[in-house]
């Protein structure tokens, strides 16, 4: 069953603006991951954050994790047209390491 759910479903922003999307999950986890998917392609891993971490950065990406609220956020700063894609969070279950993906947030960056 689906563990994580992204919010919003879709997001449209102007180039240069920041994009923020959220992921909520239901049960305790070992780690949470974010992936990007360009239309018709495979997913590309962005960031993995473990349950004992609160924030991670990678280039223009910032991920936070709040285990008390069972939620995570992905922030893309200074967005570019190339950031147009769908973004998925994936979580495992603490006693079952298989990953479960949400339905994704579709981000459109307007030039």
């Amino acid at each position, binding site marked *: 069953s689906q563990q994580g759910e992204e919010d919003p479903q879709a997001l449209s922003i102007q180039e240069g603006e920041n994009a923020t999307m959220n992921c909520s999950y239901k049960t305790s986890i070992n780690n949470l991951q974010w992936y990007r998917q360009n239309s018709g392609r495979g997913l590309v*891993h962005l960031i993995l954050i473990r349950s004992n971490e609160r924030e991670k950065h990678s280039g223009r990406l910032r991920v936070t994790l709040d285990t008390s609220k069972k939620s995570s956020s992905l922030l893309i700063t200074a967005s570019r047209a190339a950031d147009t894609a769908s973004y*998925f969070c994936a979580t495992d279950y603490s006693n079952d390491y*298989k990953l479960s993906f949400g339905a*994704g947030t579709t981000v459109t960056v307007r030039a």
Partner: protein
Amino acid sequence: SQTIHQWPATLVQPVGSPLSLECTVEGTSNPNLYWYRQAAGRGLQLLFYSVGIGQISSEVPQNLSASRPQDRQFILSSKKLLLSDSGFYLCAWTEGPTLNEKLFFGSGTQLSVL
């Protein structure tokens, strides 16, 4: 460096026909291998995973089967396709020992069953 190959990229098959999708990984040994399916506008559904040659775990009962005849080869099959088998199929791999590490995905196969 490691690479993953998945083919074909697109496939159109009639209902009732067989299916064989192949995935191979290069540059690593004893990977965990996965088959996912993605319906249009939806998230990924884990279909099968394998932690070793001949070891297949099925996540959902369905019309599909998987095999791992070699360490770095993962095959998704069906004897008779259904309309509901249409979707975007993705092969992926992780390094061990657990299943929740970073996934590396293939480029996917868009399957249309008509």
